């Protein structure tokens, strides 16, 4: 019987250890940051977050999902602060009272990538809408995120503006995955896709797809930080969210954001936006 008792003791010990584990970083010190996959996949947050943690003593729990999912978490008060890139949805989010203090942090742009032989012939096209029309006309394979992320929302907007309804078309496929994985799928299937520049650059050397269209003004990609409204959700870590938001737009952080890409990718991945 001794063994069974010792197992029970062990079990209880473990449960307490786990609780302590959780409790150690309990309320007040933890900030839940819901953000897009691009900020994590590029490694930007790995660079910024430790600096913030050291400076303030808060602990940031980065949950990298699409912008759509990040805002859904915000709408339930499950996140404290959002770093997202889906402007129209963000405005709705703030207007509905879920978020406060929406500030521009940085921008880059979306690019359209595709197979080097370019079956739709978009290489010479200047406008994203026209490129999408050509892809639709030639029925060339297009791989979509399909996950309500900022990139997906932008893509849907471009289709809409081009007057095309790609859903249910055989040449249009949705992955429901993050940007990196979606590029990988497009790469395997020789399809076209739209990506934020940062995600594309981080994969550039590893894929066969090439950049076919860039520089159209409609392809601008803006990132904003939004604090989840503490008046609506008393459970959110308002001081933590505020501190993180302030940190992102602080001049020193903005400088780090600007120099981040050069170190790893040889060009600027994110252009700081908070400097006036």
């Amino acid at each position, binding site marked *: *019987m001794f063994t*069974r008792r010792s*197992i*029970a003791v*062990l*079990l209880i010990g*473990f*449960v307490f*250890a*786990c*609780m302590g*584990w*959780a409790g150690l*970083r*309990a*309320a007040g010190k*933890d900030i*839940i940051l819901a953000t897009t*996959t691009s900020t*994590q*996949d*590029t*490694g930007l947050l*790995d660079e910024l*977050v430790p600096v913030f943690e050291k400076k303030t003593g808060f*602990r940031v*729990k*980065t*949950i*990298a999902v699409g912008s759509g999912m990040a805002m859904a978490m915000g709408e*339930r*008060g*499950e996140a404290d602060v959002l770093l997202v890139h889906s402007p129209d949805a963000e405005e709705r989010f703030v207007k509905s009272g879920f978020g406060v203090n929406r500030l521009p942090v940085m921008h880059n742009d979306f690019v359209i990538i595709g197979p080097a032989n370019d079956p739709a012939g978009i290489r010479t096209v200047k406008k994203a809408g026209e490129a999408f029309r050509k892809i639709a006309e030639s029925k060339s394979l297009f791989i979509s995120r399909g996950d309500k992320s900022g990139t997906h929302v932008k893509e849907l907007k471009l289709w809409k503006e081009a007057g095309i309804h790609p859903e249910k078309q055989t040449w249009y496929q949705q992955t429901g995955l*993050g*940007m*990196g*994985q979606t*590029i*990988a799928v497009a790469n395997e299937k020789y399809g076209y896709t739209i990506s934020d520049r940062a995600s594309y650059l*981080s*994969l550039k050397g*590893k*894929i066969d797809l090439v950049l076919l269209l860039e520089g159209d003004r409609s392809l601008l990609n803006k990132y904003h930080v939004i604090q989840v409204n503490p008046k609506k*959700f008393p*459970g959110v870590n308002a001081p933590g969210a505020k501190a993180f938001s302030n940190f992102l737009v602080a001049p020193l952080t903005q400088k780090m954001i600007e120099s981040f890409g050069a170190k790893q990718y040889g060009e600027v991945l994110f252009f700081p936006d908070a400097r006036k």
Partner: protein
Amino acid sequence: MDLILDGIIEAFRLIVTGDPEVMDITLLSLRISGSATLISTCIGVSAGTAVALTRFPGRRFLISVINTGMGLPPVVVGLFVTIFIWRSGPLGSLGLLYTPAAMVVAQTVIAAPIITGVTLAAMQRLPGKLRLQILALGATRRQMVWLLMKEARLPLLTAVMAGFGGVISEIGASIMVGGNIRGYTRVLTTATVMETGRGNFAVAIALGVILLILAFTVNYILTAIQQGRGR
């Protein structure tokens, strides 16, 4: 093929140089899945033995439920655990979401039915007369149960291995309730998915190789215990 080779080379480089981040991730995987397996073993072995040795109405139904539980999809478990422990959920005040403890809870929900099911099958396979014989020799009920467990230790260790294998390789629940937070809830499986998304295929393969080595080592130790004493 180059990629796989690169991955394996990268795996050995990471192991040999003792890359601190990878070591932390590996240890965390072991701690979380080990804790979950231990708790599941306590629950599963007792529950499995209890159901195997008793007769009650609805028993067949319960066994069907347990057997179904052995195939619980981890994402579904992750979803339900998330709903329970997020801030607006019934257990929200505990602040468990995105903690290792939450991952232990989710993995326990996954492993417990597996261990219960295998235990149940193992105990039922023991000859029925053995119980009577033990009792006839004057053993108390507790002693009888203990002796039966000892008798079934081979398949019971298989149960533990199945449970551990189920959770160490699991990703859906871990990423949902843990969130893949660097240095806190990032385990081998979630890190592998992330590195794949980043296009670091060699690192992803390396993490996969380390996961396999870890699973193999744990199973080797358990097998040694099983076969060594089982002779």
